[in-house]
């Protein structure tokens, strides 16, 4: 039997199955010329490895590592945001798990029909009262439920609430609760908003964007309420 150059190379490269490798090794054992060719193939591989492998031990230039590190950092920020979102989602999910709430009062917001500037809108007295007094998860007299509280980047205390038909986010300034965001709330017809509606989810997402830190826990809310929801020092 003969051994082709391809087979000899495949043997040197470890590409042959056990049986075929054994057969070719037997051939080689009886053929000095084949043995010499195999030795040459192996010598070439060794020579190439000896030539190129030292590069593996060289330090990798910063020019190459830096772009990867930079890209990884961007991802890290994303992970931080995701973690914060989880923080928001969890208490909200708990609040919505409560029993059906019988609320008969439709909250009327003093929200204009497009003519007013957003920065001129303040919560009406009923919502303002709810935002002043209710802790997150509690349903105030008017059927307004505060979803969560947080501070925005200017240090103002802000609260997201969900009413029977609409909800919003308001931040407390010297004048009152300035409404920065409004959105649809629970189902207006069924009178049942046990589960977070898409409107509430949007409000929570908006709150997450506005928040400078995590949402208040209960102690922080009580402290903020005691302080009249004034801006942090």
């Amino acid at each position, binding site marked *: 039997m003969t051994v082709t150059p391809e087979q000899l*190379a495949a043997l040197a490269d470890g590409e042959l199955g056990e049986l075929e490798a054994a057969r070719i090794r037997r051939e080689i054992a009886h053929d000095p010329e084949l043995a010499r060719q195999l030795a040459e193939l192996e010598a*070439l591989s060794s020579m190439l490895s000896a030539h190129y492998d030292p590069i593996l031990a060289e330090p990798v230039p910063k020019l190459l590592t830096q772009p990867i590190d930079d890209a990884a950092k961007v991802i890290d920020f994303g992970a931080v945001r995701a973690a914060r979102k989880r923080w928001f989602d969890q208490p909200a999910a708990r609040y919505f798990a409560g029993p059906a709430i019988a609320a008969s009062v439709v909250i009327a917001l003093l929200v204009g029909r497009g003519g007013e500037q957003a920065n001129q809108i303040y919560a009406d007295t009923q919502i303002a009262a709810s935002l002043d007094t209710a802790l997150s998860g509690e349903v105030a007299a008017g059927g307004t439920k505060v979803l969560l509280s947080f501070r925005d980047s200017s240090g103002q205390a802000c609260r997201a609430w969900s009413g029977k038909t609409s909800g919003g986010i308001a931040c407390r300034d010297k004048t009152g609760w300035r409404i920065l965001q409004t959105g649809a709330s629970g189902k207006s017809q069924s009178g049942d908003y046990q589960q977070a509606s898409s409107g509430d989810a949007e409000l929570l997402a908006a709150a997450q964007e506005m928040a400078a830190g995590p949402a208040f826990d209960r102690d922080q809310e009580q402290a903020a309420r005691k302080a009249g929801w004034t801006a942090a020092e």
Partner: protein
Amino acid sequence: MQDDAFHSGLTALLPRLRRFASGLARNPADADDLCQATVERALVSRQQWQEGTRLDSWMYRIMRNLWIDEARSRNRRDKTFAHEDEGLSVGASGGQEAAVELSLVDRAMQHLPDEQREAVLLVLVEGYKYAEAAEIIGCPIGTLTSRLLRGREALMLRLGEAT
């Protein structure tokens, strides 16, 4: 988590990618440029890498394709301008001077056509199986093995003569 794995995987591959680049390119500066372009392309094309497939094969393929594209456009340039360049510096072309600095192995490798050189590098230096190397290049295994065989013969001839 998955992104972390991607980036740390990329960083871990850099020494091997530098080795491959130094075999493909003609000089260290070209090799560095090739590595940099490969990393940039990988970061931009991150979405195209499929989770569960091998990151190393994917990276080698990017580098290899970038190099082949570069080599093609360089060949076109060389064909267009070679005569003028030679005419301006008869008997002392910069390429030949630089080649003197290169080692025996470098020179032997540079005489190989690109497709033979990449086959030799992937199998003999990077240690890929024939099937893996063929997949990186995007050719049938039979094509890979015949290029490897011819590349090897040319190298042994050249290196054998020199010793």
